[in-house]
């Protein structure tokens, strides 16, 4: 992305969303570690915010998104309410999923977010199916499916991408490559040339981008989504980024080579890079600081509101399982 095409207005909006995602996850981690209010595991995407932000900047609310267990950023960028999301992480009434899903199953169908998934790779066939449904119904939407680099080593990757090609579906598959499969380097577990080569072999047009450059991610996503909206074939985006935290908020990530995380943070942090971009374009430090401060304040308030919310009513435990043979009628 050259400075000559840089749009500071869009640049500010992209920075604002990345700051909001990071602030949300920093508050979520504090809620887990400091406050002991998040009881289950959460998987932060700190360092990966440019992918969620850049991609979602090109989507309409009516488009569908499917995500992973590391999906807070995607969900927030798709337009979900951070208070409802934080309530969900705390298992509270008013959470996006009524406190039944938690962090790993966060979803907001009102903004087209059809669910994070606790099973790696599982969302790939489901996302292809959502695109299949769109085609059958004649809807004007597209689907974006985001999964991690670990997901390319499970079968649904092959089955889902092939499905999308065979049925010529309006879908963009994105491998958000943070370099780690849980706590193991993905490169040590992956044969061949990796994600984009595999997608190409199945016939998808594959693009590799610097996933820490939000401007590039936004531009490339806009081009691809434009092609999909005009009836183009399914495409694949391999976004290279880095997970600055451990696998979960409780993982110190001691398995990483010494200095790796420090170097990534110093040189490739997507928020710092976007701030530099805006500063070079003449945006004042005060204004950039204000974006950061506003995002922090919003998410501190989200956590405060979530922590003040009650747990869900016990009576909801048997609701929304099934209509016929519902446990609310017979559970034994």
């Amino acid at each position, binding site marked *: 992305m050259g400075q000559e095409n840089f749009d500071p207005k869009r640049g500010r909006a992209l920075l604002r969303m990345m700051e909001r995602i990071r602030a949300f996850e920093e508050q979520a981690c504090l809620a887990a570690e400091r406050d002991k209010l998040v009881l289950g595991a959460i998987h932060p995407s700190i360092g990966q915010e440019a992918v969620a932000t850049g991609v979602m900047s090109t989507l309409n609310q009516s488009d*569908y998104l*499917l995500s992973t267990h590391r999906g807070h950023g995607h969900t927030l960028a798709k337009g979900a309410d951070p208070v409802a999301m934080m309530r969900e992480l705390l298992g509270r009434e008013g*959470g*996006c*999923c*009524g*406190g*039944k*899903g938690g962090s790993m*199953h966060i*979803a*907001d*169908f009102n903004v087209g977010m*059809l*669910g994070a*998934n*606790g*099973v790696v790779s*599982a969302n*790939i*066939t*489901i*996302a*292809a*199916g*959502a*695109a*299949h*449904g*769109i*085609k*059958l*119904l004649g*809807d004007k939407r597209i689907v974006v499916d985001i999964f991690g680099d670990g997901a390319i080593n499970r*079968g*649904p990757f092959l*089955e*889902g991408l*092939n*499905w999308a090609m*065979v*049925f010529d579906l309006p879908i963009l598959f994105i491998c958000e490559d943070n370099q780690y499969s849980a706590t193991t380097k993905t490169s040590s577990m992956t044969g061949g040339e990796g994600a984009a080569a595999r997608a190409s072999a199945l016939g998808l047009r594959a693009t590799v981008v610097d996933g820490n450059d939000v401007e590039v991610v936004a531009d490339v996503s806009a081009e691809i989504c434009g092609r999909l909206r005009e009836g183009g074939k399914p495409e694949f985006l391999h976004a290279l980024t880095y997970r600055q935290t451990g696998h979960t908020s409780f993982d110190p990530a001691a398995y990483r080579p010494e200095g790796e995380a420090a170097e990534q943070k110093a040189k490739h942090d997507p928020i710092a890079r976007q701030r530099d971009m805006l500063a070079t374009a003449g945006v004042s430090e005060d204004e950039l600081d204000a974006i950061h401060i506003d995002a922090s304040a919003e998410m501190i308030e989200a956590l405060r509101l979530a922590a003040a919310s009650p747990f869900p009513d016990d009576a909801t435990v048997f*609701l*929304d*399982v*099934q*209509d*016929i*043979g519902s*446990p609310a*009628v*017979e559970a034994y």
Partner: protein
Amino acid sequence: MPKLTYAQAALEAIRHSMTADPKVWCVGEDLGRGGVFGQYKGLREEFGEDRISDAPISEAAIMGAAFGAALAGTRPIVEMRFADFALCATDELVNQIAKARFMFGGQSRAPMVIRKPMGLWRSSAAQHSQSLESWYTHIPGLVVVCPATPQDNYSLLRAAIHCDDPVVYLEHKNIWANEGEVDFDLEIPIGEADIRRSGKDVTIVSWSNTANVAVEAANALAKDGVEAEVIDLRSLWPWDKSAVIESVRKTGRLVVAHESVSVGGFGAEVVATVAETAADALKGRIRRLGAPRSLIAYAPNLEDKMRVTAEMISAAALETTGS
């Protein structure tokens, strides 16, 4: 009323449901050519290739994509070809489809029918003969249906397509050609047992093809002066507890028979429920018949060792009556 085979009855159910609701569609391997058992024959000509959709041999994608399409607002009928192959799509069914509505706090539904032809089919051996219906009863979120007659296969398939829950629909592949009259106007709610034969002396509870075998056994018992009541559960979740309890209270005797492995089978659930709620009504010891906990062989004589026969059911019934 038309006389239809078990397979034709299902085909008519799909035809009528697809005509009534343009959101209903079918997806699976070889469907365009009519399906491996001909149970979709002619539907592609009528509804086109988008709605009778040929899939790659990708069971996980068939199940997962159908689920995604259900989330997007369609009502898929998923064909798994053989119940055995559905095991390739276990994560999609058990972790995704069954749980989505609950995990997402009621934001979504998965209105799907998953057809899984099951059961012994001469010399199909261990990977094409299994009956795993009890597994699915153990998964909250799923409805489990096991029709035994053409009428039930028509009415219950229509009910399954109409309902908003994911339904595991287990047809028995040895009875595709069984014939019977089918009333297209007859609605049968899922969860209601059928008293296939009334009797006062002993209750025989069964489902799927073994319910047909149980009727044969009851007819033979009648010649010996024993009047057996045959209850075809038709669905295993939900299952018609009250029909079973009421019958046991009348007869005081119970035989449960099914084709699947006896150990951990759904028969154990039926027997335990009777023991918990109607033990006082029992006049003889309960008998439970199922396959031995072993594997289904190819050779016919070995395969037959896995069968629950009419003779075995009659003998068990006589045993409960002390005859």
